[in-house]
């Protein structure tokens, strides 16, 4: 396995009784990459993260973490993975400082190292104002930040964040985005979210999970696919489509609505290719009159809806 890959998941399957939550998930995350994990409820995002955190064993498939096969009994491997679960820390009788010292003690940090680590994460997660406040008295947002702080305590190279912005107010969401961006590059981060805008703003790459499978995987801009609308006079839509099919980078040509006496199609191209020059050249070569040649960019929301089968908004 390449050293550049921090997490590798191949053919991952997980069943809960008769329910197949994961049906062959394939995923690779490079070192220092921030992967946004999108998917509707029940898609399997949390299950994947729980497998990576060593809390669940796969029914089938391979998982490698930093080049080693997943071994939940290997404390050294677990020390290299920080995990923020869906349920934020809730020890009712501990305050923030006590909880983080407890987490550090369990992780085997000596007193001096623990004190330094706790102060570092308190500052990083902006918990200074509530360091002496009982966990039970904290808002959901603050508890979420305490959860993030414990995940960062050992400064692990891999961070798994399950819905990290859940319960945060807009300012806190912004702060968390900044923090994730700061950590990216030096840390491999996988975070799940329902918020497409958040993933778009923070992630280097997006994987969309649906019904236990990865149905889309790529850079946010690449996933946000582009279409080109072509409107001409001089031929019908069928002839126009046939003429444009096969042009370099063109994946698909579909008829589109057009004013009377004109024909229009939508040209779907690969992300890296802009088909407009080739389209314009072909229209000119055919002697048709070109009325429109415009790029329509699908946002991540549209892509998400398309690949998960949800109706368009």
């Amino acid at each position: 396995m390449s050293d550049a890959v921090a997490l590798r998941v191949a053919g991952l399957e997980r069943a809960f009784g008769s329910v197949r939550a994961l049906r062959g998930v394939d995923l690779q995350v490079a070192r220092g990459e921030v992967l946004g994990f999108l998917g509707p409820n029940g898609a399997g995002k949390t299950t994947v993260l729980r497998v990576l955190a060593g809390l669940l064993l796969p029914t089938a498939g391979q998982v490698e973490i930093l080049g080693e096969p997943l071994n939940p009994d290997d404390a050294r491997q677990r020390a290299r993975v920080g995990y923020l679960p869906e349920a934020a820390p809730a020890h009712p009788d501990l305050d923030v400082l006590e909880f983080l010292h407890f987490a550090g003690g369990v992780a085997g940090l000596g007193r001096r190292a623990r004190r330094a680590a706790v102060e570092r994460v308190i500052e990083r997660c902006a918990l200074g104002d509530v360091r002496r406040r009982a966990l039970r008295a904290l808002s959901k947002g603050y508890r979420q930040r305490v959860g993030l702080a414990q995940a960062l305590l050992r400064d692990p190279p891999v961070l798994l964040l399950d819905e990290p912005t859940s319960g945060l107010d807009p300012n806190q969401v912004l702060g968390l985005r900044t923090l994730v961006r700061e950590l990216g590059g030096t840390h491999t981060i996988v975070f799940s979210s329902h918020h497409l805008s958040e993933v778009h703003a923070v992630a280097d790459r997006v994987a969309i999970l649906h019904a236990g499978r990865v149905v889309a995987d790529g850079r946010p801009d690449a996933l946000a696919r582009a279409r080109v609308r072509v409107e001409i006079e001089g031929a019908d839509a069928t002839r126009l489509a046939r003429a444009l099919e096969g042009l370099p980078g063109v994946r698909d040509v579909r008829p589109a609505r057009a004013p009377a006496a004109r024909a229009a199609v939508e040209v779907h191209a690969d992300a890296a290719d802009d088909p407009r020059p080739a389209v314009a050249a072909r229209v000119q070569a055919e002697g048709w009159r070109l009325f429109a040649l415009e790029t329509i960019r699908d946002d991540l929301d549209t892509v998400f809806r398309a690949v998960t089968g949800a109706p368009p908004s």
Partner: protein
Amino acid sequence: MSALAVAAREVRGALNQPLAFLLVGAFAALTAAYVFGLHPFFVEGRATLRPFFEFAPFVSTLLAPALAMRSLAEEQRTGQLDLLRSWPLSTAALVVGKFVGALGLAALALAATLPIPLTVAALGPLDWGPVLGGYVGLLALIGAYLALGVLASALTSSQVVAYVVGFGLCFGFYLVGRAHPLLPAPLGGWVAAIGFEARFTSAARGVLDTRDLTVFVGVAVAAIGLAIEAVDARRWR
């Protein structure tokens, strides 16, 4: 180190709640009431702690599951078990830490009964050797009960269910020896051998028999092992 951190947290967490003080106080009060009230201590006129050591094993079947019921069940109920298991902490260290924490609380409960031998010693000449032996034996017995309680707590996310199951296990081990005449050999012999009530007879006299201690420790180790398996089995659920 990790297990000790869990144990220390367990003791502190329990002492932050009134239930721990209630249990410790109830244990001391019940045993004292038996020794000086229900038992004809003053009629017998002997400075002995045997009534205490005869009664304490039974009260311990009520105390130990109560001290252990919260250990893993509450972590499961609040979802904190996932957080703990995501840390670089082996399941064995987690479960042993929970057990040691509960044992620390049990030691506090035993310490709370020290006024009983001190009172007896004030009333007459008390031989402290058998008292010390009896306390060590009682701690070993309670250790076995606590391990059964931790096992019950590992099986459920409800403290109430954990208590009921834990009490059933403890009481079962306490009384199972009495069933030996009803069972065919060699089963009857085995059952008699693990009955805690009979096993504690020597300790109640202040005599520490390594065979008795081996049974208590053996049951505790087996129960802790099963609790570790129960927590690890969550990876398959």
